[in-house]
Each structure stands twice: as structure tokens, then as C-alpha cells.
């Protein structure tokens, strides 16, 4: 806990976005996480991404479960909607919210414990349903909030703070999501915002379920020598497949920004994700190739990061279910609740 609130003063040359808001207008309450926690840095990257995308804060919904990571929804966009669910249940609450109001921008924040243990089933089904949301999994290899037990993402051989090595095989959220048919799969690192921010922006703009697994070191319980989720280990072993640029629809694409791009993917709203210097054995629009690439690199002991797979063609939950185009809140009361006669008519169909 810090001793004071963040003073309401800003740098005179702080920039504003298209809505006239500064980065600071996208902040939330003061973080109560340990000083130096990777999650705080992810929060700052999220603030930056929403600010750069000119999202009106009141048009976003922040969903989370339980854990240090899940607490962070309080630390950004104080004017947004939010729901802090029970442990591991964020995906279904988010699905429900999205079903009711499809016009909001949904961001779910979870941890490796929240997502890969108690909430694993929930996560799988949200992916399967292709709920239109960005799902940020802040991955530190431990249950931070309950003081550092190994989580399901801990690598074999990674040492706990007291020196014991983990022996169970990890669940890799990226491979899991690829195999379950996720339409946007990426991995980032909290200590590298220059890569994380464009990835978050693309994820927010993606139509369907976007999973970003963010390696986010736990300074208090998993940043020691022997841990494979520490700042130092991650910095020494992560390999970005290809830097991505997110080019919003509004901005003109200049020749210069095009140079060196080997793959470009146009998103449903016309924005473009550009991959610079993509290796020849890799295609971010080919699910099998992406899976193979991640596996191959993993065998070599590398932590593969980057926007690994993207599919802009698949139908999301609403399209599949053929739901009404408008959010329920915007429907007239008579069509939402057509009355006794309509109900009776419906019931008759089932007789």
C-alpha cells in the first residue's frame, strides 16, 4: 500500500487523444499490489491501449475473477463498468454480459490460477463460444494472492521461493487456446510495453475471443533465481516471432510504415495488423503452422511471444446464435417483454 493517493496533477505536455482525454483519464484507483508486480505494468499497458484507441471509458466493461491479477480491474478506467466474479467464473459472467449488451468493449482480466485451475472449464467454453472479448491472462506461475503456491502454468523444474522444484507438467494457455479454436492468440511480457500495447489494441479490436497470455512476474513469490517466470529469466529467454503494428482504420497507411511488413491482416472494422519480419517457417493466419512453431520453439527452451495466430473470419457468439443486433437495453420494452399473449403463443409451440 502506498502512503498517498496519486496527486491529481499532470505534466503540461501530456498528449490528449481524439476524445480530448489524457492517459491519466484512463487510470483507476491506486494499486494495492506489491511494489514491482508485473500486473501493475500490464495495467499501465491497458490504460495506454484504451487511451490510444480513443475508447470512451463508460463504453467498456471490466470483468475478473479472484487473484492479484483479478484485482487489477479496479486500477484502470474508474468510469467503466465492472464485475468482480467468484474464483474462476469470470468467463461465464462475461458471456452473460456480452449476450445482454454486445455494444460494450469487454476486457477480462484473470490469472494463471483463476484461468487454468478452478476456471479451466469456464475458459475453454468461452473460447469455444467465441465470446467477443479480450481475455488477458496475467501469468506468473504461482497463486500470488495466496502467497506463492505453484499454479498449473509452472514449468517443470522451476523452483519455488523455498527451493523445491515443480514436477507437474504445465498447461500452456497459448497451446490450449490454439487447440480449442481460439480466433486470436498472443503472448506478451509485462516488462515489454512497446510490444504489449499494440497487441492489446489488436486484441481489443478483434471480433471474437482474443486471448493474450502475459508473462507477468510476481516480485514477491516468483522473481528469484531458479524461477522460470522471473523478470531476468523471461528477459533472457523470450523470443518475439514478429513485432506487430496496429494501424487503426482512421490512420493513413504510408509507404514507410508498410516497409518490411511481410504479413498484413485486415480486421473486421478495417484496421490492420501488420507483422514485421515474420520468419519463413511461420504464418500467423495458419493455425497448424502457428501451433507447430510454438511447439518447436518451446522444445528449444524458448518462450515464444508475439501475436501468434489471428482469424478474422469466424463467427462470434452472437452471429452463431443469431441474436438481435441491438443491445437488450436499447430495445423497446414491448419487444423485450411482449406480454402474456405472446408468451402463451410461444408456450403453445411446445405443446
Amino acid at each position, binding site marked *: 500500500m502506498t502512503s498517498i493517493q*496519486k496527486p*491529481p496533477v*499532470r505534466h503540461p505536455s*501530456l498528449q490528449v487523444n481524439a476524445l480530448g482525454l489524457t492517459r491519466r483519464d484512463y487510470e483507476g484507483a491506486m494499486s494495492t499490489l506489491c511494489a*514491482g508486480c508485473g500486473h501493475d505494468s500490464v495495467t499501465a499497458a491497458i490504460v495506454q491501449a484504451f487511451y490510444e484507441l480513443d475508447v470512451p471509458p463508460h463504453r467498456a466493461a471490466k470483468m475478473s475473477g479472484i487473484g492479484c491479477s483479478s484485482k487489477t480491474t479496479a486500477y484502470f478506467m474508474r468510469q467503466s463498468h465492472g464485475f468482480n466474479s467468484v474464483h474462476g467464473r469470470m468467463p461465464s459472467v462475461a458471456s452473460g454480459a456480452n449476450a445482454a449488451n454486445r455494444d460494450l468493449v469487454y476486457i477480462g482480466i484473470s490469472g494463471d490460477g483463476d484461468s487454468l485451475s478452478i476456471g479451466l472449464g469456464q475458459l475453454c467454453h468461452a473460447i469455444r463460444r467465441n465470446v467477443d472479448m479480450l481475455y488477458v491472462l496475467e501469468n506468473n506461475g504461482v497463486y500470488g494472492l495466496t502467497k506463492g503456491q505453484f499454479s498449473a502454468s509452472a514449468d517443470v523444474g522451476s523452483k519455488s521461493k523455498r527451493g523445491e522444484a515443480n514436477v507437474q507438467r504445465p498447461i500452456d494457455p497459448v497451446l490450449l487456446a490454439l487447440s480449442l479454436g481460439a480466433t486470436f492468440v498472443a503472448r506478451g511480457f*509485462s516488462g515489454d510495453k512497446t510490444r504489449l500495447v499494440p497487441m492489446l489494441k489488436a486484441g481489443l479490436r478483434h471480433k471474437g475471443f482474443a486471448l493474450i497470455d502475459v508473462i507477468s512476474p510476481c516480485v514477491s513469490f516468483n522473481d528469484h533465481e531458479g524461477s522460470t517466470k522471473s*523478470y531476468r529469466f523471461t*528477459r533472457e529467454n523470450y523470443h518475439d516471432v514478429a513485432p506487430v503494428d496496429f494501424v487503426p482504420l482512421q490512420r493513413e497507411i504510408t509507404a514507410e510504415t508498410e516497409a518490411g511488413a511481410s504479413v498484413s491482416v485486415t480486421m473486421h472494422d478495417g484496421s490492420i495488423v501488420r507483422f514485421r519480419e515474420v520468419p519463413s517457417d511461420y504464418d500467423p493466419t495458419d493455425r497448424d503452422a502457428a501451433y507447430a512453431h510454438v511447439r518447436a520453439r518451446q522444445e528449444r527452451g524458448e518462450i515464444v511471444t508475439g501475436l501468434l495466430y489471428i482469424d478474422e473470419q469466424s463467427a462470434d457468439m452472437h452471429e452463431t446464435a443469431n441474436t438481435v443486433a441491438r443491445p437488450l437495453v436499447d430495445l423497446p420494452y414491448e419487444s423485450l417483454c411482449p406480454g402474456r399473449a405472446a408468451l402463451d403463443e410461444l408456450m403453445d409451440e411446445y405443446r
Partner: protein
Amino acid sequence: MPTDVSNPQYYHKVVDCQWACPAHTNVPEYIRLIAQGRYTESYLLNRQSNVFPGILGRTCDRPCEPACRRGRVDGKPVAICRLKRVAADLRDDDIHEYLPPVPAQKNGKRVALVGAGPAALTVANDLMPLGYEVVIYEKNQRAGGLMRVNIPSFRLPAEVLDEETQIILDMGVDIRYGTPVTSMRSLLGEGYDAIFVGSGAPKGKELELPGRRETDQIFIGIEWLASVHFGHIEKIGERVLIIGVGNTAMDCCRTSRRLGGTDIKVIARRSRPYFKASPWELEDAEEEGVQIVENHSPKRFIVEQGKLVGMELDRLRWFEQNGKQKSQVIDSVVIPCDSVILAIGQDNAFPWLERDLGIDFDENGMPVVDKQTFASTKPGVFFGGDAAWGPENIIWAVEHGHQAAISIHNHCMGIPLTERPAYGMNLVSSKVGMHAWSYSNDYSPAPRSKMTHEELTKRFSKLSVEVELGFTPEQTVAEVERCLNCDIETHFTSNLCIECDACVDVCPVSCLTITQDGAEPELRTRLMAPALNLTQPLYVSEALPQTKRVMVKDEDVCLHCGLCAERCPTAAWDMREFDLLVPYAGRAVQMVTLARAEARRPVAAT
């Protein structure tokens, strides 16, 4: 290139007020002492550098305030000057025992000072504790120089002046009142080891226009103020014109208001932005009903039958030509008046100083004085205050005095004048607990406190009624909290940093960036917020351990809130109290006086 913070001047520059103060007064520390109710210590800390806290707390030109960081944060600087007065008003009555002791055993060196203005008094203040025998020759009957005879008592009460000049004289100075030095040659003949000339710039400028010599109702500002002080003048005409719009003009118009003037106009050749008087002086004058007339240039005095009846003035229009401001006369107007006071500047004059003594003067009649050592061209003769380079102000006179004292001491001890004692610093962590600091780090959004003034009728009832009433306790409490504690420095230890970004993310004013090193102009453009204020430095760390990038800090609007240090998991950032060790003659640094005051008084609970 990594920034060298082991050089005391780097952190000194971060303390904007202290850097701007000619005498380098430790402003934030004295403000904290006031906040803790430790007025005497606050006073003594002030006194160490500026010697006259009670006087300056009312009259200082306050170069610190335009420099104050708070001004860049919310538009209004901390009321540094008036807080100084709080310390002076509330300190213990008797502070003699906290002053540096004056040895009974003298060091055998005798020094003569010409004049008892702030410059010379500072020299005496610095030399007496070193065992010098100091003789002051003063033509008036009291000490203080222009502070006494020119600054009106409604701005500076005589008791305050008496007290602070007496503290110095009580050190055992041999002051000879009513003794003008009439010949430098004979003074040199007295065999002093050193002579300091602090005789000021005593001559008011003339304005020779038609009619000037036909009436006795045209006065020279500084002479007129002195005559008022001595009681030789007690009245002035009802309609008064003051020519000029500097500090002297402000005192002349306000004094006129108290001597029977009812319709007072200050005539300025230019428009407001170019006025010499400070904005607060203008405000005070206008509050008293004085009118400021812009863009008028005096043409002639109109005297009818030996009686001054008005002045003819040209109305001017200003424009720019080849980058220079030029004026054009529009027409001329007559403004009726009964008296005129000329306040258009001061000149130096040394009628008592023979020109064949080896003391060189330049073509403008000014002595040739070394900027660093204050030495004239004759070894052992020094100049300071207004006498050295023309009219300045009290705080500059004080700083000249300190520097001249160092030179005099070197001269008498056989040390080259240019071998000056070095600045030093102390840097101590202010961390006193997990998230607790030894200073109040929270940002107070309070607006600047406004000084309350005596009501107008009371003010005009007597010349010596002090206008400013001082801050109330509530105002003081609010104002001390506005100070950002710029001397509590953000100190960085690069090899501790794990590059978690916590500090960068938490900083409310986007001061911090971790990035690739680069040349400064280019580096300034790619920070969290572009560093556009080029007068403020960038701090650049050594290469960070994990990625070899650097930590960059734009000092411009850092609030010294300590959040970076609180959020840093490794204490790579720490908040450290910086104490500039300013050298004085014969004493590298002296916190002695303070330590003694502290020992006596139980620390106030905060």
C-alpha cells in the same frame, strides 16, 4: 551520458528556489521547520544565508518565487517570502546564544567598512566570529543604509530593522556614526588590513526638461524618501506625478498618499509588461488608489508665476522595427499637478574616492571590480552591494557581502583570492518506515494564500502603520503544505533496478521513462511526456542491468511525492534529503547554530 549527481550543483539546481536565490537560502528546509513549529531554527537557517530574514520576509525582491516549481505545477509559486516573515515574527526573542561565538582573542587583523548597508553588515557578520576587528564608517546616525532611509516604514517597521542590524553590531563591531569617509587616501593611511566599500548607489537621476529649475515642487525620489524618513518633509501637494515606474516610484507614490496626496499618477514611458516594478508592488499601489499612466513621456514642466501647475507629456505608440522597440509620438497632453517626484533611476558616485590611488574606474565612472572575488584593482580594497555594479537589491547585497568576506579572509590569511572554499552536500535517505517519509509527501491542492492588508483608513492615518498583517496560523499551515519539498531528491541506484516499470507507471506527472540512451535533444522527444522545458535538466542513469537501457527523469514538474520510491520493489529509487553546504568565510559550513537550537527544544510533535 550518465548524469553526475555527486556534483552538488546537480541536485542544487533541482531545488529551483534555492538555485534562484542569490544567497542560496535553503527554502524547503526552512518551510518544513515552520510546518513543525520550529520557528527559531527556521529563522536561524534563513539567517545563515540571507542574514536579514525579518527584513527580507517583508521586502525581498524574491527571485525564488518566479523560479518555484509549484508555479509550473498550478500556476502560483509558494509564498516563500512571506513564510520567511512567519519564522521571523514567531521566533524566540533572544537568539544571541545560537549565533556563532565571537572570540575574545582577536586575530590581529583590522578591516574597515565604508557604509552600514546590508552589504557591509554582512561582511561584519561573517568576519566578527573569525576574530577580526571590524570598523564601520557610516555617515548617517543609524545602520541599515537604504533599507532604513528609503524603504518606507509602512513596508518595513523600524523595530525589525533595528533588531536585525543590532544583532550584528552586538558582535562587537566598532561602528562610527555620523562619520562619512571623505577621503579614501586618508582611510588607506589608517593601516587597515583590508577595506570594503559598501557605500551604495546614492545619487538619484535628474530629468533636465524646461521648467525643471523654476519651482521647488520637483523632487528626486530617493532624496525625497530620505527627507521623509528624517522628518524634513511632512507634506506634499494634493496632485502628484511620479515619473518612472520602478521600485522607487512605488514607494514614492504610496508615501505621497500618506502625506496629503489624493490624486497620484505614476507616469510610465512603456506599457505594463515592461515595467520594472514587481507585479505585487503595482497591485499594492493601485489598491491605495494610485493611478498608473502608460505610454507617456515627459516633455516639460509647466510653471506659472513660479508655481508648478502641470506637466506636458507626449503620448507614445510603441512598435517593433528590426527587432527593436521603437516609439512614435501620437500627440501631447497636459496633466495638472502640484508636485512631481522623479524616480527614474540611481547612479553611483564616489566623490570621496581619489582617482590616483590604483583603484581603477571605467569610462562610466564605475569601479573595476572582479565578478568572483569583488576585488578592486588595488590589493586589499573590495567593493560590494550597489557600490560594485550599480543598484540591485538587498539579497544581492547580502550575497556580495558573503563573497567579499571570503576574499577579505583569504587576503588577510595570505591565500589567493581565487582559491575559494568549495560547495559540499549531504544526502540522507528520508525513509523512516515501509511507506513513511520524514517529510509530508502528499500533494496539497490548496491555492496560494493571499496576504491580508491593513484597512485603508488606518493605513493612511500614520506613515509607519505596517500594511501587510502577516499570515494567520491557518494561512501558514496551508501555505507550508504547498511546498513540494524539491530538496527531497529522487536518488537512483541503477544496479538495483529490475526494470519492472512500477516507477514509470505510478509517476503522476510522467517524469520517468526507461528507454534507449541517446543525445539529449532527441531523447527529450521520446519520453513519457516530451520534455519541452529546456531550462530544466534531464537525469540519465547508467545502463540498467537487464536490458542496458537507461532510466531518464525529466526534472521539470516532479512533485517530489515519493511514489516512485514507494512503488520500487528494490529501493533503486530513494527519496534523499539534499543539504547544500554553502561555504562562508573561514567556515566551510556551519550547521552548528542549528544543532544547538535543536538540542534545547523538544521536537514538536507533527
